[in-house]
């Protein structure tokens, strides 16, 4: 479980996040949704510690992450897997080396054990016989899956996915969404997905936080979101004519 309490963050006097509190539950796919520029990515960066919140605290289970020293934060971070919007695979490393990177850096596993784990993770995300290829030699969807394999290679307790299906076709996007949900259940992780894709929201949104203009406007789940009364969220959900017709 990850909990944020009263998080606020400003840049050069411009308020990006204002007093956000939320509980991201274990074993569920928790979604942070909102329009572009609403503060989703800033909130995520505050949670993982890439940014320091001006006010407020972040808890990983019972650990008050925001007040830990740098070295202690690193211990928590080793339990975090993160899938970035652009995959963020290391260009100079092959698929196999990318997935093996955290294992080589943080574990005392033998080379055979590392390769075995890498192959297991790649097989789990349906990437077969691509070990020696470089990120530039595989498709965007494959890059996302390799990034997921890297994220789960250390069996993390917490998984963050920043717009996991941006730039992907609808079929591949659903494959990625389903994969994230399956892995969340399988490893009983606390998964946080940042998205503005309504397909993802309706597919995997078990616990949803809606942010607008840096303020928390709504929380609920995928069943409740279709009957929402909050104007900002209503406009966000029913922006497409298809959903408007469905609603009518």
């Amino acid at each position, binding site marked *: 479980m990850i909990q944020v309490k009263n998080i606020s963050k400003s840049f050069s006097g411009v308020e990006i996040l204002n007093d956000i509190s939320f509980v991201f539950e274990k074993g569920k796919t928790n979604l942070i949704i909102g329009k572009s520029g609403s503060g989703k990515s800033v909130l995520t960066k505050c949670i993982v510690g*890439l940014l320091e919140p001006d006010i407020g605290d972040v808890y990983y289970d019972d650990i008050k992450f925001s007040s830990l020293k740098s070295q202690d934060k690193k211990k928590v971070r080793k339990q*975090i897997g993160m899938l970035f*919007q652009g995959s963020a695979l290391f*260009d100079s490393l092959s698929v196999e080396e990318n997935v093996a990177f955290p294992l080589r*850096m943080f574990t005392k596993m033998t080379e055979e054990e590392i390769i075995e784990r890498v192959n297991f993770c790649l097989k789990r995300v349906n990437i077969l016989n691509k070990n020696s290829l470089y990120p530039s030699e595989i498709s965007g969807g494959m890059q996302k899956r390799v990034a997921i394999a890297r994220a789960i290679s250390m069996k993390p307790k917490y998984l963050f996915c920043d717009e996991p299906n941006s730039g992907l076709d609808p079929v591949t996007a659903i494959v990625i969404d389903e994969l994230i949900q399956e892995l969340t259940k399988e490893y009983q992780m606390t998964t946080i997905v940042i998205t503005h894709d309504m397909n993802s929201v309706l597919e995997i949104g078990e616990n949803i936080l809606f942010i607008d203009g840096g303020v928390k406007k709504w929380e609920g789940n995928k069943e409740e979101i279709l009957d929402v009364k909050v104007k900002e969220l209503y406009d966000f959900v029913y922006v497409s004519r298809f959903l408007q017709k469905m609603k009518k």
Partner: protein
Amino acid sequence: MIRNLGKYMYMLYHMFFKPEKFSVYWRRFLDEVVQLGVKSLFIVSLMSAFMGAVLVIQTATAIESAWIPDYTVGFTIKQSMLLEFCPTIISLILAGKVGSNIASELGTMRVTEQIDALEVMGVNSIGYLVGPKILAALFIFPIVIMYSMFFGFFGGGLVCYFTEIIPVKQYILGIRSFSEDNFVFIRYALTKTIVFAFIITSISSYYGYYLKGGALEVGKASTNAVVYSSIFILFANYILTQLMLI
């Protein structure tokens, strides 16, 4: 200015944090030795050979006199190559080649969130990315410069052989003459090289690592890295020369 200096010092400070795993950092160091040093050998040997060749022709033409012995050309080439051309000019060339490479590599990693990925994993990204580059340059650049000295003399020798502007024996005699000061000159050249290696890699890493923006800024960072590395090399060259040769 003070803020930039503070960030630069912060970067250097974080470089010396204990590595997460020594073997991974060692491999990075070896990769950087190849990337920064070994892959520069071709351009360095080409530049040095042509510099030596041109210097021989210019010097021989300038001091053509019955009163000046031919070996003076070889001696002049030795002094010029050891004291200035190899350590400074080749370092300026490396600032262009290696500096832009480092800044664009780290800048691209910043833009594509690869540096954020390292930080989220709990890796000291400065120590992992910048540290091996600086250490590798401090190790390999002096070797590259000695290699450059050899090719500089060799290029000069080839010109003497093919054009007979002065006899090859006289050229070699000039290079070997007054050799009691050679150790001092080489020590001076290598000291300069080590300082220049640090300037090139640290300034270029700074511009790449702290890049903000997109592809356009990667280009700007690359240019800034080369420009500022070159300026600081010229300043350091003057200061070191005054300190060590006067």
